[in-house]
């Protein structure tokens, strides 16, 4: 089958291809790039399509670590602190005060149809409030129906009195995960299984079956498009049969705008079971769906004090939690490395990264080098650990949490000495590591340009400088949201740069991320994306 060739002309094309770093023209045929260059290409391919004449094209952004839950969770109304863009493209204003939150919830409450229906919302984060909203504030929304807020991390909830009463929570049976006010009354905030279960049991769990909701995955695709992402990881998925079927069908839809790389969760599986699943899953692969990788979670999060750290948290909170016995985590890594399976390892705390480095050192000694595995988040790795990771041929993904939790890490979790050293992208590059940077949506919003801005400028949400010695250049940051994550996903043979033979995936921007002031990178607009040569439109 022969394809006609389309030549596009852009204000500039940033290619991430060392052979030709900058261009103005790209020729596309059959969904792939056939040539990259300047005006001379018009002699070969005829006059250029001016669709991108005013735009700057980059390789399609690759989100190396996000979760399809980002799409699923928009089933519920968003009431977080920061403004956030709905996958459909409209702006949802942040609720920056308790009053604003209550006003928003009242409006949502009036729209509920059933008299006894529970009002659910998500995205709320108590960290941003001096006087955080409590049970009583939610009682002002409704005293007759349950009101339940999922926090942005989805692990905690805040509930009103009706919900607490139905769950049987009162001052007489307060447990660890039930927070109380000065008078010893439950204040509505609930953490962990023992406290959250009775509430969701009483009022229903709205995100119970979220993983197989096709509308959720379509919203995830829209979120990608809006942020300029043409390929995204979905880095933790049970991949049960209904989920696999749904992913296969929805990503194959003609207008589904992104390539998805789901990673199988090893939770509750033996290495043998993982091998069997990974052997059969790639049968479902097509150009927008890439099964085959595996995700191992070792510890929790730093802001949740559940990461495994080598030095204690500064406020006396006990060390975090392993997600499985360390020996079993290491055995799993060694067995899957020997089986030549690609691994993404969640390591937040530095004790978790130490455990993982030790396992890979042994695995490589036993079985030789195979796939280049990825340390995800890797937020607390120091120079020595990063050097070790480079020697082992690993790849590091860093979080954009310098902005979202930098202040909290300095003041409340790991302290002023360690916090500015976190997400050490500069040290990693200097050590020779391949790196990428990520958003971890829905933990933080999808937005490679914002993530790049974080790595270049290292400012916290309050505007503080946060370890400027770890800043990377705009070029390095752009590479860390394109070619870097493409390498981390083992897809750099077909995506990640604008080079002949690769898939024609581009992101069209309204300004040049390498020429604007570094502080302005986050303000660059995404015009839309091209996926396999097809213009996906923008917002």
């Amino acid at each position, binding site marked *: 089958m022969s394809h006609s060739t389309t030549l596009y002309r852009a204000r500039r094309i940033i290619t991430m291809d060392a052979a030709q770093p900058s261009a103005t023209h790209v020729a596309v045929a059959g969904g792939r790039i056939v040539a990259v260059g300047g005006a001379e290409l018009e002699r070969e391919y005829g006059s250029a399509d001016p669709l991108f004449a005013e735009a700057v094209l980059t390789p399609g952004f690759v989100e190396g670590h996000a979760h399809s839950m980002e799409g699923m969770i928009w089933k519920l109304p968003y009431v977080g602190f920061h403004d956030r863009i709905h996958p459909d493209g409209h702006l949802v204003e942040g609720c920056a005060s308790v009053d604003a939150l209550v006003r928003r919830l009242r409006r949502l409450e009036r729209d509920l149809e059933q008299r006894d229906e529970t009002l659910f919302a998500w995205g709320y984060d108590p960290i941003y409030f001096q006087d955080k909203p409590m049970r009583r504030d939610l009682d002002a929304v409704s005293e007759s129906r349950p009101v339940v807020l999922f926090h942005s991390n989805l692990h905690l909830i805040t509930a009103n009195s009706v919900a607490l009463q139905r769950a049987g929570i009162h001052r007489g049976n307060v447990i660890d995960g039930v927070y109380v006010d000065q008078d010893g009354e439950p204040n509505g905030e609930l953490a962990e299984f*023992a406290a959250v*279960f009775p509430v969701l049991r009483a009022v229903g769990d709205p995100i119970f079956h979220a993983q197989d909701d096709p509308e959720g995955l379509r919203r995830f695709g829209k979120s990608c498009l809006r942020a300029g992402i043409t390929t995204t990881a979905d880095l933790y998925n049970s991949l049960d049969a209904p989920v696999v079927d749904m992913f296969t069908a929805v990503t194959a839809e003609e207008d589904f705008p992104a390539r998805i790389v789901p990673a199988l969760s090893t939770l509750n599986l033996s290495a043998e079971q993982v091998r069997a699943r990974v052997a059969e899953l790639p049968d479902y692969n097509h150009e927008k769906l890439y099964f085959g990788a595996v995700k191992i979670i070792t510890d929790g999060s730093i802001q949740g004090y559940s990461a495994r750290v080598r030095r204690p948290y500064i406020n006396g909170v006990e060390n975090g939690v392993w997600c499985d016995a360390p020996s079993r985590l290491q055995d799993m890594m060694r067995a899957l490395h020997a089986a030549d399976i690609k691994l993404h390892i969640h390591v937040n705390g530095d004790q978790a990264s130490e455990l993982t480095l030790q396992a890979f050192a042994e695995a490589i000694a036993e079985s030789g080098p195979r796939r280049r595995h990825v340390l995800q988040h890797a937020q607390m790795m120091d120079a020595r650990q990063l050097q070790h990771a480079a020697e082992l041929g690993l790849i590091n993904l860093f979080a954009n949490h310098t902005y979202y939790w930098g202040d909290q890490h300095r003041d409340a979790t790991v302290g002023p000495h360690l916090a500015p050293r976190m997400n050490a992208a500069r040290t990693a590059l200097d050590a020779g590591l391949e790196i990428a940077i990520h958003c971890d949506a829905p933990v933080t919003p999808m937005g490679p340009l914002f993530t790049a801005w974080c790595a270049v400028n290292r400012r916290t949400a309050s505007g503080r400088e946060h370890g400027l010695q770890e800043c990377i250049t705009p070029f390095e940051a752009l590479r860390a949201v394109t070619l870097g994550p493409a390498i981390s996903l083992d897809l750099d043979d077909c995506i990640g740069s604008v080079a002949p033979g690769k898939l024609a995936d581009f992101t069209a921007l309204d300004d040049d991320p390498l020429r604007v002031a570094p502080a302005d990178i986050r303000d660059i607009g995404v015009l839309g994306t091209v996926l396999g040569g097809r213009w996906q439109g923008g917002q």
Partner: protein
Amino acid sequence: MKPARPAPPFSVVGGFLGAGKTTLLNRLLADPQAPRCAVLVNDFGDIAVDQALIQSHGGETIAMQNGCICCTIGDDLARGIATVLDLAARPEHIVVEASGVAHPGRVAEVARISPELAPGGVFVLADAGAIGEQLQDQWIADTVDRQLQSAGHILVSKLEPLPPHHQAGVIDLLSRRYPSASLSTTAEVQWAHLLEQARDRRRGAPPAAAHARFVARTLRSTAPVDVRKLAHWLEHSRDVYRMKGWAVDRADGRVKLIQAVGRRLNIAPCEADIEGLVAIVIGNPRLPAAADIVRVIGARESAD
């Protein structure tokens, strides 16, 4: 609203990887005396009960001939508990196997809140041969310690294969570090024990309440013991089911291993690094308090 149904006691069996949780649960599931209970386990792969004891096997649930059901938790404990609570025949007791890294005390707390569950026991297993090293291990010491801190009842597994002096050290270590938990070995655990603990917790009565059939005492003393008196007490007590202990005998200053099963008594010299007395005693609720037993047998200091 759902009609009120009796809230089954909710017990948690925890302990680090390899502590013997699955072995214990396999035995309890196969017990013909089992109550109509639901046992929630992490993985069916480890459940190895005789096929003849299985009535039916469907997806996430195995029904046993004795009326027990066994369910997998998968990645969602909430879903597992909801499933068994929604069964037409609600189980009389729910036992959850906490994962090897979970905090069993935290999991158990759900029953203090949920009107559909009654508090049961928190049983934490400790592998006798490994626990000493685990409590020193760079990766897991704090996790294992947290689990044992939360135990109402510590069950020591794999004790018998160890040399006697090593056994004494394990019992000594655990009874010293976790004085508020009762201590026995997994070999002694029957359904009755799990149920008694649950019932006691529900009524707010101490474990020695008159209706109970099973109590455990840990005896400790820093001073030598009159082993003849101890033997006399064991031979005449109608309240001791089993006893295992190590004592420095006041008569000759040597360490003796003392084991009793019912009235059968065995005393033998052994090597063990102890000061006075370390022992675990399982008996009926008329068993005197640990301090009283220690006084009777002529030791001076004790801790329960």
